[in-house]
């Protein structure tokens, strides 16, 4: 069985992202997450470079790896050419592969992202589509979005879109053969497998937490993770 550190090291992003850290703190100084969460990318990188198996497992099960907003501001500044943001990506990958992500509040949110963004990619060919942006779920989008949402067809036509129609243009329909190619890429490259893993581990956790229905419906769990 490979150690966590060995598993991390197999990813080229990890090799690029962490060479040797001297704990200078330039990453934390400008990290948006370090300011608004109890989070310190310097300490995280230091913990990772200590290579201690037990504390790495604990880390993968913790909220700490889920605070980063992936802005990569740390990469610009690091005097050792490290990139904590990229190290985070690999930690999150392994946390999901090992099913550890459901052990933390922030990690559990991955199901919501998988269902909102992941499924949308395969359905519409884009990460976002106006139809999934329900105004009641997105009050921050304001009255303008409600106006667009309620007049979707006319509004997008007004701005030259080709909403859900074949051919080129903004928000055009991505045809089934293209969606098929996308799905095939997901199947070949581990994308589909990751989706299934997230679903599987989330279902297990939801049952543990009493938030899954008999038939495996996770609506209650989804509501819970989106608000916690």
């Amino acid at each position, binding site marked *: 069985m490979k150690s966590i550190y060995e598993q991390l090291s197999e990813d080229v992003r990890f090799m690029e992202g962490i060479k040797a850290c001297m704990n200078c703190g330039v990453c934390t100084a400008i990290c948006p997450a370090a*300011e*608004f*969460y*109890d989070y310190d990318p310097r300490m995280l990188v230091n913990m990772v470079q200590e290579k201690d198996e037990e504390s790495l497992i604990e880390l993968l099960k913790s909220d700490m790896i889920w605070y980063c907003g992936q802005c990569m501001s740390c990469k610009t500044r690091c005097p050792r050419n490290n990139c904590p943001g990229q190290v985070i990506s690999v930690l999150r990958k392994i946390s999901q592969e090992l099913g550890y992500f459901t052990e933390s509040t922030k990690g559990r949110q991955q199901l919501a992202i998988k269902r909102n963004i992941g499924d949308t990619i395969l359905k519409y060919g884009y990460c976002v589509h106006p139809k999934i942006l329900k105004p009641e779920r997105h*009050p921050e989008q304001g009255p303008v979005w409600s106006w667009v949402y309620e007049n979707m067809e006319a509004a997008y036509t007004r701005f030259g879109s080709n909403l859900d129609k074949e051919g080129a243009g903004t928000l055009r329909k991505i045809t089934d053969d293209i969606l098929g190619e996308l799905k095939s890429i997901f199947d070949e490259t581990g994308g589909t497998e990751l989706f299934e893993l997230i679903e599987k581990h989330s279902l297990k956790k939801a049952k543990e937490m009493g938030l899954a229905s008999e038939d495996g419906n996770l609506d209650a769990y989804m509501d819970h993770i989106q*608000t916690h």
Partner: protein
Amino acid sequence: MIDFGYKIAETRTIDYEQFDGRLLEFVLENERSFVKCLSCGGCTATCSAGNLIDFNIRKINLFLRRGSLEELSKEIDKCMLCGKCVLVCPRDINIRNVVMLIKKGIVKFNNEQISS
């Protein structure tokens, strides 16, 4: 008002512009040696209380210098006043006296606040 379903996050950044130096001044006036602290951690390593509970005596210097008075009040009560830190300090700081002064200072400034 619209319920957006979340609250704006609070900053954790130490904003030096908000720093209130009164307690620091009080401590340094009465125990000047504390100005020499190197943050080496020798005190923490030997600390009787710190070996038993979650307490880092080195950090009281930081709390004091960054104006984190709430944390300081909580931490300072964990000290057992054994004085071992004074023995190991490479800069000969009377840490025990510093602790006493902080306790005294906190009471003093709390009282001043109440009376004002």
